[in-house]
């Protein structure tokens, strides 16, 4: 079943005791039922609540989950594997994803900027969040938690849909941890020196979109090259 153009190779099958195949259940009816559910919820949002934009967001969410599962995408593994196995295929893919998103987001931001003439309008589309010591502490804690739990934020949701009971346990604790974080805000706001106006928008900080994009793509390229080199070196 080789694709056309590929040389015909007969791979010698590895000798093993014959596998006992399990009975396969036809899951297609369930798949169709879920499609029905997706459509029903979309309809409820668009028509019942009169919010077609919400229906669009819902479909995007479904598409995100579908894509994550179909490509076995795992951000956790992209961070973890370089250390654990020396593999960087996922890391490189994440960098590619970041580059494509940068192009898209910058296009939107530039559009807003040219329309209004103000950098502030572009900044609104920038997911700007405070940055500081708390980002580092939070990121480290998150990274530890993601590897231990067997999946990050998107990974947890994806695996819940795939049937991993472990992730169904992760979720309530994820919720609890978030709530505790929100509840203790007055404490760590002070302890970790958070300033809600500390967001740094690269075009503003570096003097324009051109330097910002040069730096951004430069760093992404450097990351990709580093990951590529790391993945090629030695065998684990």
């Amino acid at each position, binding site marked *: *079943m*080789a694709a056309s153009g590929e040389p015909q190779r007969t*791979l010698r099958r590895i000798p093993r005791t014959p596998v006992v195949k399990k009975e*396969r259940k036809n*899951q297609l009816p*369930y798949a169709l039922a879920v*499609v029905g559910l*997706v459509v029903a919820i979309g309809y409820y949002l668009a028509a019942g609540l009169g919010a077609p934009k919400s229906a669009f967001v*819902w479909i995007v*969410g479904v598409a*995100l*989950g*579908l*894509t*994550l599962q*179909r*490509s076995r995408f795992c*951000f956790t593994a992209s*961070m973890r594997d370089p250390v*654990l196995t020396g593999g960087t295929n996922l890391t490189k893919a994440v960098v*590619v*994803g970041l580059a*494509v*998103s940068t192009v*898209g987001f910058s296009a939107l931001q530039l559009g807003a900027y040219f329309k209004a003439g103000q950098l502030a309008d572009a900044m609104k*589309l920038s*997911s*700007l*969040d405070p*940055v500081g010591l*708390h*980002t*580092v502490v939070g*990121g*480290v*804690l*998150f*990274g530890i938690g*993601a590897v*231990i*739990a067997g999946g990050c*934020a*998107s990974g947890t*949701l994806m695996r819940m*849909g*795939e049937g991993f009971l*472990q*992730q169904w346990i992760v979720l309530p*604790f994820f919720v609890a*941890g*978030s709530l*505790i*974080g929100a509840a203790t*805000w*007055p404490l760590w706001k002070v302890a970790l020196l958070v300033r809600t106006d500390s*967001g740094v*928008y*690269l075009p503003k*900080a570096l003097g324009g979109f051109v330097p910002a994009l040069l730096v*951004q793509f430069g760093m992404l390229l450097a990351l990709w090259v580093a990951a590529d080199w790391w993945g090629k070196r030695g065998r684990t």
Partner: protein
Amino acid sequence: MQLDHALRDREPADAPTTAATAARVRWRDHETFKTLFVNPWTYTTGAVVLALLNVALMAATGKAWGVTTSVTYWGAWIWRSLSGDPHAWPYFAEVKPAFNAPGFSFWNDAGSLTNLGMVVGALLAALGANQFRVKKLKSRRQIGAAMLGGLLMGFGARLAFGCNIGDLFSGLPALSLHGWVFLVSIFLGAAAGSKLLVRYFI
């Protein structure tokens, strides 16, 4: 390449017994169906599609993809149903004022919709490939790992104002410095987590 060959599903379905099942089997074996719905996509394909979806989300709503803010809202709504008063918390007033907007609820929160959508989408993908299976826990250690990991992720995401999606996959491409800082931090955390995992949870 050996990997490509191995990942491509080579098994024909079992011998059909009736004309109807024969028709269904032939359709399922079709290469295009398999490429789209059964064989896994490449990581790069996944990354590009995810990126495009994120851009679409930003274009349509003005806000990029994010997971953990809505998870916090879910916790707050649950807390409210347990007679708590999260609306009075400084956190929501100072950091997430949208939470206190009149009429704000699950069904008009974009993040909640995408989160739920992700669960359903993954389920759909697995079912479509006939690969859905409930994975029960194998050992007690997994419960501890799930609990600890979940707590750390939830708390860490609040501190960092986001997670691998909100900060990394959305913040970084949107040219915000916190995305880059988060990238370095999560990498360090994952490295530390790997050591802990190997030592205590395997």
